[in-house]
């Protein structure tokens, strides 16, 4: 059986990844790993996923699997865990994006069982 802390640990072990968290759609932080203002980051990641899902719905693009936002300092990846939680991952510019996304997809399947 998977546990949330173990899944986040595996994510943070990916080179370049330094923060990860699991947050409920209500903004309640279920678990987090890495130095961050978890409540604040959780709220914006939860809300961002909601808005991006609404964009897909209004554009008739179906269900959302993942969002990746690129910044000067790196990327933020967010992915829904069923309909009630979200996984957020923060990585710096050195991260191999393909590798991070692969681990995120794997983690989502594990989190669907863990939560």
């Amino acid at each position, binding site marked *: 059986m998977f546990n949330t802390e173990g899944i986040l640990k595996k994510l943070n072990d990916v080179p370049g990844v330094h923060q990860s968290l699991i947050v409920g*759609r209500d903004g309640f932080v279920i678990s987090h790993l890495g130095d961050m203002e978890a409540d604040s980051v959780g709220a914006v990641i939860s809300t961002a996923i909601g808005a991006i899902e609404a964009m897909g719905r209004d554009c008739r693009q179906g269900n959302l699997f993942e969002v990746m936002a690129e910044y000067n300092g790196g990327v933020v990846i967010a992915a829904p865990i069923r309909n009630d939680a979200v996984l957020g991952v923060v990585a710096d510019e050195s991260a191999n994006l393909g590798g991070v996304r692969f681990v995120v997809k794997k983690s989502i399947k594990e989190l669907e069982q863990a939560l």
Partner: protein
Amino acid sequence: MKRTVDSRAAQGVLYGLYKALYNITGSSAAAVMRQAAPDILAELGKLGVSFDCVDDVQKLSSKLGETMEKTGMCDKMEMTLNGDKLTANITNCAFHDLTKHLEADGIPPFGCPFAALTIAIAEKNLGKKARLVHLAPIPGGNPGDTQLDVQLF
């Protein structure tokens, strides 16, 4: 001079805001309300309503209940703690019509101020993480009678 706003006008404004927020953010709208609650508390503080003295559930029940009743948000609000579950019973919620209106449009009561403030005070003053786990009309109660359960961690 004290200025009052017709509650129907206030609810009309809230209806528009809540509907737009839900359309834009879906079920994540509750996360926005969670972020808003500490600021609502701070604004109430400016009106002379301070929750600084709250350091246990009994004081939380007394102070929040008194505030909600005095401001006309409900007739009565009482809380009980069972283990880590905080239950609030609200009598004649002033937002009942707004809630029904939103529910008719498929929008859940994510903006419940009773839940938001209970969570915010529990987290700030009781040092617990708190999450809404149940919000529904009290079975057999009058319209506007509501029970909410908040899980404390």
